[in-house]
């Protein structure tokens, strides 16, 4: 676990620095996808999440859309994949995304179209390898992460 400008970057996740999403490899070849700490900080308190279960999305296309109290935007996939399911906990508590973006606040589980994709070759960074590009990105943005501490995200 490492921090850059108060933003957390767990050691066991893959990061798409440009798109600000993380991936975790699941047994069986699936991937769990979520928003990074900087992404949820930029958005502010998230009040609604819509995951496109069943959708096949190309790299950069949205697998979900999120609405914070003041912004709406898509959450893209780093690789071509089919959306298996969304995180059911977010339906009643979208604030989990702000409070625990790498744990209970995961967004969706996806199945890559290509078997056993080489995530490094796709430009993703694993764990501490993401720290250097994030240090530069967050420095340019002047962003420091903030986590919401309280309840149900309204």
């Amino acid at each position: 676990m490492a921090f850059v400008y108060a933003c957390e970057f767990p050691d066991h996740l893959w990061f798409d620095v440009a798109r600000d999403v993380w991936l975790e490899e699941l047994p069986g070849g699936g991937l769990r996808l979520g928003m990074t700490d900087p992404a949820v900080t930029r958005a502010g308190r998230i009040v609604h999440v819509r995951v496109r279960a069943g959708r096949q999305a190309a790299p950069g296309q949205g697998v979900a859309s999120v609405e914070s109290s003041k912004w709406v935007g898509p959450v893209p996939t780093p690789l071509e994949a089919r959306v298996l399911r969304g995180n059911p906990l977010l339906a009643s508590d979208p604030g989990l995304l702000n409070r625990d973006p790498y744990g209970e606040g995961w967004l969706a589980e996806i199945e890559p179209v290509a078997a056993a994709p080489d995530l490094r070759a796709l430009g993703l960074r694993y764990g501490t390898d993401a720290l250097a590009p994030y240090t530069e990105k967050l420095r340019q943005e002047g962003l420091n992460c903030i986590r919401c501490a309280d309840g149900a995200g309204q």
Partner: protein
Amino acid sequence: MRYLDFGTVSAEQSQAVYHAVAEELRPGDPITLITVSPDRPYVCVGYHQAASREIDRAYCEEQGVPVGRRMVGGGAVYLDHDQIFWHLVMPGGAPPVQAFYDRLLSAPVGAYRDIGIQAEHRPVNDIVVGPRKIGGTGAASIGQANVLVGSIMMDFDTKAMARVLRVPSEKFRDKLISSLDDYMTTIRRELGDGAPTRETATARLVSRFSEVLGERVEASALSPGERERLDHYAQILFDPEFVYRQEGWLQPGVKLKDGVRLYEGVHKAPGGLLRFIYRDREGVFDDVLLSGDFFVDPPDALQRIARSLLGRPASEEVLRLLLEEGLAHAAMPGVGEEDFLQAFRAAKAIEATV
């Protein structure tokens, strides 16, 4: 800064235009400002809202009021020719939301001040004149663009707005109209006959955005690609399949401005039907209307209880305490403290189905 003066166009095109420009925007393209008004009134719900819960669909269809869904968040809004909508479409990834509003809302605030209205930016994204909000703003990432949208409120028809929304009762609708009057303002209301023309207000806005962005204004027109996407979005954003899709975000109450919502709860007590309408301003009972079809003695007992709540925290604990006092001096056969609490809970509850 590229500027598209889109003038007055159809309701569908007025909503579609910024979606089209955003989708066509590529990294390195110039920032585009659009100003536009619809040629007739229409209603628009937020991207994640459950439209069937927010909108009186039957009324809108009877009256020929189009209903659309935008790809920007927030609540259902009524839009007409008295509002000049502006859309700023910028290349780049998702921005830090607060900083985005802080920087860019200084332009519409400056434009209001130029015409003699002491507007201020109230974080996160309200523009207010004293206690009242003047127009709304919102932001979204669409394609590779960030979009900031807002309106210059020349005038606003609060009755028409209240009529197109799906509300629990006509009493609630009346309270909604008075609440909109309490919490919203317009250029006409602030300046009366001294209000500037639409053209002057628009020119001030464009000039202020040019200053804030530090870029010269370059008048432009839609590209062929944007024109094609405009037609596409004008169709899909108003397609009932898209507007009334069977999912959405349910929230209790009607938002009047940041921190102010209007609620209604109804409860069937043994003695009759109890209706509890209240306005919550930052956690406080701001306005309360209690009514019922049961016997009450003295006749003004419900009004007295309602008055006792004003200015007090809008919580069950406070309500329970004040009800004990209020009901001690009143007779309401078949209606007790627990019935009032049930009506209050019903007002705050989110409906389980769309």
